[in-house]
């Protein structure tokens, strides 16, 4: 493992397992603090976190119909992440790519498919891992404000992520979780869709923004950075003050009025 770096967990106690963080290209490119928030949460939950050298999960290729390209990318990911007990991603769509779609990229009965299935079984979205696997029920964070949670489509429909982030958010001292109308309605991002059909995307996001504003929330929280960029960009363009933040940052206590969102 010459190109990974490791860390021991906080308390020095025997770790509950080795988690490889699948950081996702958007977090890698955009908001390292989301990755660090995820690491912190996982370490506090008693796991050792490692970050193998990594790239994209292959969703852009897969969703565009480039199965061959997606397969090649997947093979690299499977090799790099195979040695770990768990693979955790701060993204419903990337976790779903590995967990739900990787095995089908390979021929039935092949060793490659079996390897993909093994990886799939141990891959989780972050809040689902913390709640369902690590058994976490509360986080040591404070946030005085109203938050509203957006269900990323892949996380919700492909991985069943819905209750877990909400329960963890509710455990934050001072927080009020207010549901928007149809929190599971699509935000309009859809990967390349927002660039290929921008006017339709804008209209979909417009409906979403109306629902967000109607909650009068201080923060919009979601588990996928793609959704957050789409909604944040639209809120800003239309002059709204709601701050769009990732659920990992909120749970790790990195969000608050005295913390700048950009450092």
């Amino acid at each position, binding site marked *: 493992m010459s190109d990974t770096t490791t860390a021991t967990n906080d308390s020095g106690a025997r770790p509950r397992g080795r988690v490889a963080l699948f950081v996702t290209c958007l977090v890698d490119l955009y908001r390292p603090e989301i990755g660090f928030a995820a690491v912190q949460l996982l370490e506090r939950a008693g796991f050792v976190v490692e970050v193998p050298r990594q790239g994209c999960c292959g969703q852009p290729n897969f969703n565009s*119909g480039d199965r061959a390209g997606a397969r090649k990318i997947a093979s690299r990911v499977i090799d790099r992440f195979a040695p770990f007990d768990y693979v955790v991603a701060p993204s419903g769509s990337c976790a779903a790519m590995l967990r739900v779609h990787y095995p089908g990229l390979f021929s039935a009965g092949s060793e490659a498919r079996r390897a993909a299935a093994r990886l799939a079984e141990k891959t989780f979205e972050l809040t689902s891992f913390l709640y369902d696997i690590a058994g976490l029920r509360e986080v040591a964070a404070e946030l005085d404000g109203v938050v509203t949670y957006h269900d990323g*489509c892949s996380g919700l429909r492909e991985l069943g992520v819905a209750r877990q982030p909400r329960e963890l958010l509710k455990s934050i001292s001072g927080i009020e979780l207010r549901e928007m109308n149809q929190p599971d309605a699509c935000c309009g991002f859809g990967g390349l869709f927002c660039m290929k059909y921008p006017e339709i995307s804008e209209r979909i996001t417009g409906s979403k923004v109306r629902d967000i504003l109607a909650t009068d929330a201080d923060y919009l929280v979601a588990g996928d950075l793609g959704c957050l960029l789409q909604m944040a960009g639209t809120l800003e363009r239309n002059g709204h003050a709601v701050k769009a933040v990732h659920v990992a940052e909120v749970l790790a206590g990195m969000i608050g009025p005295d913390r700048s969102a950009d450092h």
Partner: protein
Amino acid sequence: METTSRQFRQLSRHALEQATLQHSLDGVREIMPRIRAAALAERGDFDALCDRARDIRERTLRQLDSYLEAFERRVQAAGGTVHWAATGEEACRIVAQICRDAGAERLIKSKSMVTEEIELNAALERDGFTVTETDLGEYIIQLRGEKPSHILAPSLHVTLDEVAETFHQHHDIERSGPLTNATEMLAEARSIMRDKFLQADVGITGANFLVAETGAAVIVTNEGNADLTASLPDTHIVVTGIEKAVPTLDDVGVLLRVLARSAIGERLSNYTTFVHGPRRDGEASGPANYHVVLVDNGRSEMLGTEFQDMLRCIRCSACLNHCPVYTAIGGHAYGSVYSGPMGAVLTPAFAGLPAAAHLPNASTFCGRCEAVCPVRIPLPSLLRRWRQRELSARPVMDGQRFGLGLWRWLNHWPPAYSLAIRCAARVLRRLSVPGRGGQRWIRRLPLLGAAWTDCRDLPAPTGRTFQDEWRRRRS
């Protein structure tokens, strides 16, 4: 099938600008999911019913030939005639011939998507017949010369004022004053339509299901117009796709339970009619002639392919009602009689992928369609399959193919990937300007990036990548 789906971009832009259409679509987006959810909540076994419905449709498609043959035998034994049409044109010719044999001039129709698909009305009118739609929504768009914009609510895009205007224009009757409300309009439509029902020579309906066990064509409406269409004229013609076959009455009961709940949040539509054949000796009324036209028009070609699951569709429209794209642009933008997610899968199959390529591409893959489909069609996967076919048909140097190839290559070489991401982070950071609360934003991107910044800002990245920062902190 004729479509204008090539013009999807223009059609959808146009749709986004129409205030009255957007108002109707807002209603669909807000109300339909709510009423469906309420109907499901009452019926705690809805999931089990959908699993059963999926299995019924699966089993039927795998033995479609024997169920169609059994259905045919029953209809013939009851005194009806079954016709088979490989194409839409053949089906139109068969219907026209039946009408000629009946010496018919005036035809009435109840709503049938397959007759829209094969453009039956146009063919019959070319042959000199008068055709009147009896479903109120279909009647309204017929008067206006428009196509349906929703598979269950074809006149969704027409406002009440526009209905009044249309009736004023086309109904040659005495009124005490102008039409001002829905009740008056309904009363007028009802009385105009009554005359048509009573004077018609031939009634043409679709069928929601064909029950092999008894030979029943099952027709579902809320207005009762299909029943009048099927019982008043002397000839009744059922035009239906071959995939509508259902093995038994038990099976159709399960499907009926999920159909109205998925479509309109009701336990059952107001009228569910089972028609077995023509009038019998001693019967007081009913058509003397009963015909069923089984239409293939590309359906059998889908069997045995990766698109077979689409044939499970029972035309409930739940996928339309829950789709973020459909509820943003409405049905006309798809340029096809089948719109929404089901239309995005079916239209390329019936009209060819080159004509309809936009439709499977214009999806966020949010997956709501699959989640609400009562027969569990994996719609996003099918859309992805169309994208796969479309991509491989593009030239190698096509922009999208090139971009995807480049991305694949970058992911193969970690140093190249890291370099690319690092550069992108820095470039984007440089393009940003300070904004509110210490956050930096990119207001304008050049070239391809303009597709983002034309309608939204882009938060600026921090400028350092996670992997670089991780390695830095840990060393």
